[in-house]
């Protein structure tokens, strides 16, 4: 791409911090203007930096493995809900590109310290935490906190640094290189998926803590202030604001079950008795406090308190929609207290609740089918619906104990170790355990599971058209036009995630406007007012960044050897008809949907690889050149 003359970048801090753990060196690099213009920030920065810096075939757990932690030009400003922390890496769970999104306060604090992103490389000699205070970066010994849960480590770090420090940390799961371990925020608004915690564990990195005193300078502060006021007004008139504020993602558990999502019993999806426990009025009773991320009036986070049953006394972050499913429906568990307790264990040990629960459901089905015995399960009878088994298995996975040591490898590897046909029941795509939607009950959403560059994620292409009928209703069970819809949704998400936005806030704003276009127009205007980057004025440029990011992430995987055969879903979805209303009788038409999708994307039908024409159209000529050099560009 054409490079630009140096010019002030407003909204950005203008610096990227590189942390080299091997040499205990902190290097500050100027944020390239072209990087800002072409990739905006957050997920966009991650995709580009990983493409540039990661050699194909790098072991994600090696010192050479690179991780990008980033946010956006909006982060730390008054714009609503643009303060998420994005973590990009090559996943030790899947071997593919990965991006995971968390909330809380870390990103804003790191921006205040003066950085647009942190790039982590190398491996520390011994357990280390990194303490960033504005320009000062210290590598500190973490030996005494190695082995502690996330909350324990955060407390120690705050004692040793600053009571107000914000942190990302790993727990025992990451230290033990559990493949579903994650980096956790100090308030549990965690980028949970893909195994980021194992990378930190391998790098001997226990935590990064930060405190900052600077504030981003805006290009047109008055105009920007007006745009934020417009945003707040749109939020206020949005029908989604009240449910989100009252219950967060718990407002829809029961409804989604009724609509054919929230799969049961490891995606067998037979009726679940007692699904009424997920009615909003039941879940609301557990809420004792509302919490939110930096700069967000939605405050969708909730604290639960348990007063009865074997887990009485728990006071912790609530189980999100996904966790009600992973610790609940997919294991046949309807005991909300056990779900909340297992959720808390995941947070403290630092493992992904979605993958953990998926793996418990997987183990339960293997037990039901006689593929694993009570003896192999350390004497546990892995019966569907048993809350004690759920809690015990989650603990075992986090600590790599007994059967947990096998499951800690993730569904694909665990199935290989177990053998005896176990792989048939491993519910994943590209090695990422599937979350709380069934591809047979929402075809575009399912197509996004199959084609997602990070594997089975619901957030890469969360389909508001199919799932909420918003802003326009699309029949979730048809296949026509789903390639186009999937591309549109994936590109829009990539675009607003490059701007560091929260997916829930986008839904609230789009429901308020009644239109995706209006939301994207608003974002373009606000990005320009914040940064002064001329190109951001045009919403078409923002959409193009989304498509560019999506294609670059794809190219990363192509370079790693991924092809059409990896855009795959388990046989269960392709052959077993969905057994309950409303998708009764449905299967997932994978090949037909893939052909449609690749065609719309301008990718090669045989390999699922972006063509030179497509890459050049997106300004990614050098990416096409490299793929060609490696013999991976379609003829």
């Amino acid at each position, binding site marked *: 791409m054409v490079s630009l003359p140096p010019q002030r970048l407003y909204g950005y801090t203008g610096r990227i911090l590189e942390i080299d753990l091997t040499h205990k060196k902190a290097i500050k690099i100027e944020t390239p203007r072209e990087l800002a213009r072409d990739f905006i920030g957050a997920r966009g920065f991650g995709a580009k930096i990983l493409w540039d810096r990661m050699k194909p075939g790098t072991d994600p757990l090696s010192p050479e493995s690179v991780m990008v932690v980033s946010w956006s030009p909006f982060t730390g400003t008054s714009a609503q809900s643009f303060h998420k922390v994005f973590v990009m890496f090559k996943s030790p769970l899947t071997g593919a590109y990965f991006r995971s999104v968390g909330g809380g306060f870390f990103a804003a604090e790191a921006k205040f310290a003066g950085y647009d992103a942190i790039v982590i490389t190398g491996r520390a000699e011994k357990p280390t935490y990194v303490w960033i205070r504005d320009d000062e970066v210290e590598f500190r010994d973490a030996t005494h906190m190695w082995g502690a849960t996330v909350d324990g480590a955060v407390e120690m770090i705050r004692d040793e640094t600053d009571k107000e420090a914000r942190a990302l940390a790993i727990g025992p799961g990451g230290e033990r290189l559990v493949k579903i371990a994650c980096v956790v925020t100090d308030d549990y608004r965690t980028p949970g998926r893909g195994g980021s915690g194992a990378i930190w564990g391998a790098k001997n990195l226990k935590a990064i803590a930060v405190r900052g005193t600077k504030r981003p300078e805006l290009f047109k502060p008055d105009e920007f202030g007006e745009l934020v006021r417009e945003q707040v007004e749109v939020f206020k008139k949005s029908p989604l604001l*009240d449910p*989100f504020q009252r219950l967060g993602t718990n*407002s829809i558990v029961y*409804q989604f079950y009724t609509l054919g999502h929230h799969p049961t019993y490891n995606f067998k999806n037979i009726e679940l008795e007692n699904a009424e426990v997920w009615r909003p*009025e039941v879940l609301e009773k557990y809420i004792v406090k509302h919490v939110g991320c930096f700069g967000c009036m939605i405050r969708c986070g909730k604290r639960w308190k348990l007063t009865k049953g074997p887990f009485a006394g728990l006071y912790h972050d609530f189980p999100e*929609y996904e966790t009600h499913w992973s610790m609940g429906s997919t294991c046949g568990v309807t005991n909300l207290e056990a779900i909340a307790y297992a959720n808390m264990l995941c947070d403290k040990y630092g493992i992904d609740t979605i993958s953990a629960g998926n793996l418990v459901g997987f183990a339960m089905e293997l037990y039901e089918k006689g593929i694993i015995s009570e003896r192999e399960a350390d004497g546990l009878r892995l019966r569907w619906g048993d809350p004690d088994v759920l809690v015990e298995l989650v603990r075992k996975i986090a600590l790599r104990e007994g059967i947990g040591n096998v499951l800690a490898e993730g569904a694909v590897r665990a199935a290989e170790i177990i053998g005896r046909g176990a792989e048939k029941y491993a519910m994943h795509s590209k090695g990422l355990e599937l979350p709380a939607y069934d591809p047979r009950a929402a075809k575009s959403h399912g197509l996004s599971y199959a084609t997602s560059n990070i594997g089975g994620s619901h957030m890469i292409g969360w389909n508001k058209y199919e799932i909420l009928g*918003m802003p326009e209703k699309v029949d979730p069970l048809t296949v026509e036009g789903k390639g186009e819809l999937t591309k549109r949704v994936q590109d829009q998400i990539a675009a607003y995630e490059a701007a560091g936005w929260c997916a829930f806030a986008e839904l609230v704003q789009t*429901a308020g406007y009644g239109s995706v276009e209006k939301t994207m127009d608003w974002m373009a205007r606000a990005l320009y007012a914040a940064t002064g980057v001329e190109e951001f004025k045009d919403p078409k440029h923002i959409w193009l960044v989304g498509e560019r990011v999506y294609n670059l992430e794809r190219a990363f995987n192509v370079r790693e050897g991924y092809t059409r055969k990896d855009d795959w879903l388990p046989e269960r979805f392709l052959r077993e008809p969905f057994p309950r209303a*409303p998708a009764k009788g449905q299967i997932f038409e994978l090949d037909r949907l893939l052909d449609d999708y690749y065609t719309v994307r301008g990718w090669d039908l045989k390999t699922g690889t972006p063509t030179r024409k497509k890459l050049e159209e997106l300004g990614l000529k050098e990416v096409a050149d490299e793929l060609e050099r490696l013999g991976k560009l379609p003829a």
Partner: protein
Amino acid sequence: MRVYVEFLGYAAEKVGRRWMWLEAETGCTLGDLFAKHLGSTIGAELANALTEAFTRRELAVAVNGRLVDRLEHVLEDGDRLLVFPIAAGGA
């Protein structure tokens, strides 16, 4: 014919019930059901308010687990309706 109507969230609070069966004539539309049959059970004012919330897309209705976006939708005997405030989820 009879249809089963289940209410969630503020819809349940306003109606004061979680579910009810309603008798309706063959060919009855969602709009008719709300205006006539729900109206005679919970009062015309409240039934109207729910209809308006549906039109403004603040309230969603699923019939047998499938979202319906038109008041003209024709109901059938034994249909199960879920009436709920539109809400979203994800993570």
